């Protein structure tokens, strides 16, 4: 028998109140874990995909749309631009690298993106099987594409017009899979990649068109140095027919838009946790009268007031610890489920296998708050008049 065991037994003896408090604490910590991991996951997911892309050039329209379309491949493109004009912009001395992307077709809702090999280098992706294309209509597919369509090396498929997988099929130009990429947790996991020529050929005007009439959807640009960011976006927007969008700015804008959702989640997490702490406080205050005799008995058996104080505090710490532990567990389970259901679709990875410092801090904070909530009830319990309590209950 020790203080901890006694406190644990006391909690078990008050099943209903203990269970209710625990339930609310677990819910609060679960929400907190979701909040931390979702915002971290979204943040790192979004920032992973803009590594090495300082600016995106495309047809005029919404800059956010351009970024969502050309970088994340979750929106429709703003239109096409002239490849020749884009190439001449790419020769600007402030630009280190310019990667053209051209898209508009899909296979089973996976986008087919015509680009150059440097696109793969951008995300530092390795091949699981095969290698890069050597000519038109050779395709390299992302890990999710391979897993979900069952396509393997040497298999061929036809692209469909449009990005939704419902468009008319381009029946005369089959693609052959020559490479399968390793999972990179970037947007490339869900793309079919080929050279630019393939895209032009599918749309059937390659031969009759002059080189100068060729179009691409967008160009992903990396600057040589910080000077680029100061001058180039303005230069492009003022002097060319394109628009320039800076991914870092647009992602921040997107997060500002998502911010309201996170604020609501945060308020809910705080409110629930505080409710749990209040429930603990109420439960301890409520049991004060019930337990006065128990505590007086313990004093009669030789317990000193400090031990009585410790028993009440230990109850709060036990509840807080189980609540925080349960919340972490349920939060991680929820993240695992979310990753299974939606992770691939939006290209996000949530950390359900490891604990972040934020999550540990949340758990610790919950335990400390529980302890603080116990201080007043513990003081009250400690100060009961032993002699009077023993007499009152005897008669």
């Amino acid at each position, binding site marked *: 028998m020790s203080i901890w065991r006694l406190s644990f*037994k006391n909690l078990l003896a008050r099943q209903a109140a203990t269970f209710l408090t625990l339930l609310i604490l677990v819910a609060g910590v679960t929400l907190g874990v979701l909040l931390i991991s979702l915002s971290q996951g979204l943040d790192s997911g979004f920032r992973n995909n803009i590594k090495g892309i300082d600016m995106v050039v495309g047809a005029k329209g919404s800059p956010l749309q351009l970024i969502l379309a050309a970088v994340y491949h979750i929106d429709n493109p703003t239109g096409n631009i002239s490849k020749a004009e884009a190439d001449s912009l790419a020769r600007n001395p402030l630009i280190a690298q310019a990667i053209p992307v051209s898209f508009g077709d899909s296979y089973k809702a996976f986008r087919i993106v015509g680009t150059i090999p440097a696109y793969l280098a951008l995300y530092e992706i390795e091949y699981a099987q095969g290698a890069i294309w050597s000519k038109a209509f050779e395709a390299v597919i992302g890990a999710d594409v391979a897993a979900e369509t069952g396509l393997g090396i040497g298999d061929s498929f036809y692209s469909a017009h449009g990005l939704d997988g419902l468009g008319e099929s381009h029946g005369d130009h089959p693609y052959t899979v020559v490479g399968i990429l390793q999972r990179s947790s970037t947007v490339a996991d869900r793309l079919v990649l080929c050279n630019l020529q393939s895209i032009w050929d599918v749309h059937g005007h390659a031969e009759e068109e002059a080189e100068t009439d060729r179009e691409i959807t967008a160009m992903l640009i990396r600057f040589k140095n910080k000077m680029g960011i100061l001058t180039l976006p303005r230069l492009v927007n003022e002097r060319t027919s394109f628009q320039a969008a800076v991914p870092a700015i647009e992602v921040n804008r997107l997060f500002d838009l998502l911010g309201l959702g996170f604020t609501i989640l945060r308020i809910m997490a705080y409110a629930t946790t505080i409710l749990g702490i209040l429930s603990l406080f109420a439960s301890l205050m409520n049991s004060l009268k019930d337990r006065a005799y128990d505590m007086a008995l313990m004093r009669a058996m*030789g317990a000193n*007031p*400090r031990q009585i104080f410790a028993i009440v505090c230990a109850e709060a710490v036990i509840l807080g610890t189980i609540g925080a532990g349960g919340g972490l567990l349920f939060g991680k389970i929820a993240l695992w489920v979310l990753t299974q259901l939606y992770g691939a679709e939006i290209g996000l990875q949530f950390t359900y296998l490891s604990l972040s410092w934020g999550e540990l801090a949340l758990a610790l904070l919950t335990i400390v708050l529980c302890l603080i909530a116990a201080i007043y009830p513990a003081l009250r319990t400690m100060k009961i008049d*032993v*002699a009077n309590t*023993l*007499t009152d209950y*005897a008669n």
Partner: protein
Amino acid sequence: MGYFRSRLKAVIEKSTAIAVSGLRHTFEGGASLSFPDFEVNQNEHLLLFGNSGSGKTTLLHLLAGLIRIQSGDIRLLNQSLKGLSQSQLDAFRGEHIGLVFQQARFIKALSVIENITIAQYFGRSEVNKKSALALLSELKIAHLADQSTAALSGGERQRLGIARALAVQPSIILADEPTSSLDDRNTEAVAQLLLREADAYKAALIVVSHDSRLRTHFKNHLEI
């Protein structure tokens, strides 16, 4: 602690366990009680007899160190209670005094045997399940060891109450109206048990009661 306890026991075997002198207590309302001087030796029994309102329970609480002494003094095992702080009183009570109450009540969250071991724990005595079980079988309630105390009958409760008081092998046993809620048969049994166990532990026993059925069991009476 064990060594100290056994030395102490040897020294006080034949000596005065309880000595009350010039004890007065004034309640918050202004009512005041004064108690007669008396002494109880180790291995002796005393029945403090008085009607309700005579201050029996107050005297018992003073003896147990649950109420601070205002004037006069109580010496237990040659230790003046006046000189002890609240925590020292708690420690002294836990270690040397076994208390038996009128209504035997227990810690509801704990089983029968755990109510014994918790007394050992708070009495700074070694927590020993074996000796707790031996104590229960001495009082013929060993078969109830793992039950909830709520399931006990009145007689069983009173026996467990006595077992708890004996858990730390006390030098002094103080019983507050231990029989007033019991029928004649159980009163007889509890009185016998208290006297027998006090002898077995060589403890000084004080019973405060207004139950005249107890008079025949005690050689020494004191009216208050």
